[in-house]
């Protein structure tokens, strides 16, 4: 490995002992960061150092580290999931940063996503929106025959465009209003495209929109910032679609 694959970075990391504690930025410098590391691996390296020094490691969420679980949630240099579009924080590599760069790391900030510790926030609000209506009714028991319910290719493709949502919450984090409209819109749009979701179609959109409001998310002002930070590129057509679904559900 050549020395050009090593960079020095300064980190400003949000530290907060607990939900009620006052948070602050703590500065760290890593002298030799391998540019082939992912952003989370870089944090692992820092945490190992902290533990060796008998200091409290930085808490951050992660699980799959391959961009599919939606656990990782870091606001990197002011942007949820960092500077690369269509990339979750765990898929972001250190080669996208410059030698000597200062990188700030903050948690998602929203009333509906209270901070648990450091960079970890409670995203159960999303789960409650899902329990309010993000399901379909099916008979349990044997798996049904795969082709029992025909679905047209355009419908299944369109449902898939929305089903790719990994529920990370970057849309809320990036939204100047902390609105959860992209998340809720994606779920509503996905299920409204499929025959399996049809019986709950009207109830679903009303219940999910209600829950989104109860959780304390803000209104949508059509900034489309959510689309720009979404690691899977869900378009705000999901939101427009949720609105038409809602009107149809209320009017008849």
């Amino acid at each position: 490995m050549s020395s050009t694959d090593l960079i020095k970075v300064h980190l400003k990391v949000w530290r907060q002992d607990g939900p009620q504690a006052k948070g602050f930025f703590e500065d760290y410098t890593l002298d030799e960061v391998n540019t082939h590391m992912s952003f989370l691996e870089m944090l692992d390296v820092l945490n190992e150092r902290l533990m060796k020094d008998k200091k409290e490691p930085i808490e951050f969420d992660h699980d799959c580290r391959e961009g599919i679980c939606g656990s990782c949630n870091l606001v990197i240099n002011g942007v949820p999931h960092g500077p690369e579009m269509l990339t979750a924080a765990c898929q972001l590599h250190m080669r996208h940063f410059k030698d000597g760069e200062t990188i700030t790391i903050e948690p998602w900030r929203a009333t509906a996503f209270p901070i648990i510790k450091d960079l970890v926030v409670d995203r159960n609000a999303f789960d409650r929106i899902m329990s309010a209506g993000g399901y379909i009714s099916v008979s349990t028991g044997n798996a049904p025959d795969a082709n029992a319910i025909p679905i047209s290719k355009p419908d299944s493709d369109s449902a898939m465009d929305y089903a790719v949502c990994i529920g990370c919450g970057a849309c809320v984090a990036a939204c100047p209003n902390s609105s959860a409209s992209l998340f809720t819109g994606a779920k509503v749009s996905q299920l409204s495209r499929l025959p399996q979701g049809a019986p709950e179609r009207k109830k679903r959109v009303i219940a999910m929109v209600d829950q989104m409001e109860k959780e304390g998310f803000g209104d949508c002002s059509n900034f489309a910032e959510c689309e720009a930070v979404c690691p899977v590129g869900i378009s705000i057509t999901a939101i427009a679609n949720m609105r038409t679904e809602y009107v149809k559900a209320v009017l008849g």
Partner: protein
Amino acid sequence: MSTIANALQSQVGRKILTGLTGIFLTLFLVAHLSGNLSLFIPDGGESFNLYADFLHSLGPLLWIAEIILVILFLTHAYLGVSIYLKKKRARPENYKYYKSQGGPSKQNFASTSMLISGSIILLFVVLHVMHFKYHLFSPETYMVEGTEMVDLARHVSEAFQNPWIVAAYTFVMVLIGVHLKHGVWSAFISLGAKNPKLTPVLYTVGGIVALLLSLGFLAIPLYIFINGGL
């Protein structure tokens, strides 16, 4: 019925109302500008005065239109303020570092200053109506067949020779363009425009509508000021 009332108070309902009131206010601006452009007919303002007389002759119809307009303005402003207040509650502690990702984002000067541009527009509308409808600032009237009349075209022409008035109008007309740069597009999305091929076009179309309205309204005070009258 109660479900519709509830629905209008939901996040989606409020947004649809914001969009609807915004679109109707924009349509009002189009109508208002079309009438005003009759000032450019070179007949010493006669067409413009005839147009104003025609509106007044509508009597109760005009009142109804005016009441609807007031309701549109108040509903729209109320929703705008409540969206802003909710946004404050939804994130009490701001990011210390925050940046727009760019790309498809429509976060820009226009979209982040909607409440400011809107509030200045509202203040302007009140002053504008006091000025040109109730003639509070220059009550120069004359008698025609026993009724008090105002030569509206002359009033407009005289007002727009005052550099302060022209400067204030220029500022506000630019702000209307700024408000509508985000507003027109946003209203379409609020009302459910969801064709991914169409939405980028809508943003451009919204920008053009905003620019044309802004330039159209700007043309009147600027022309009168530079020309030294109608």
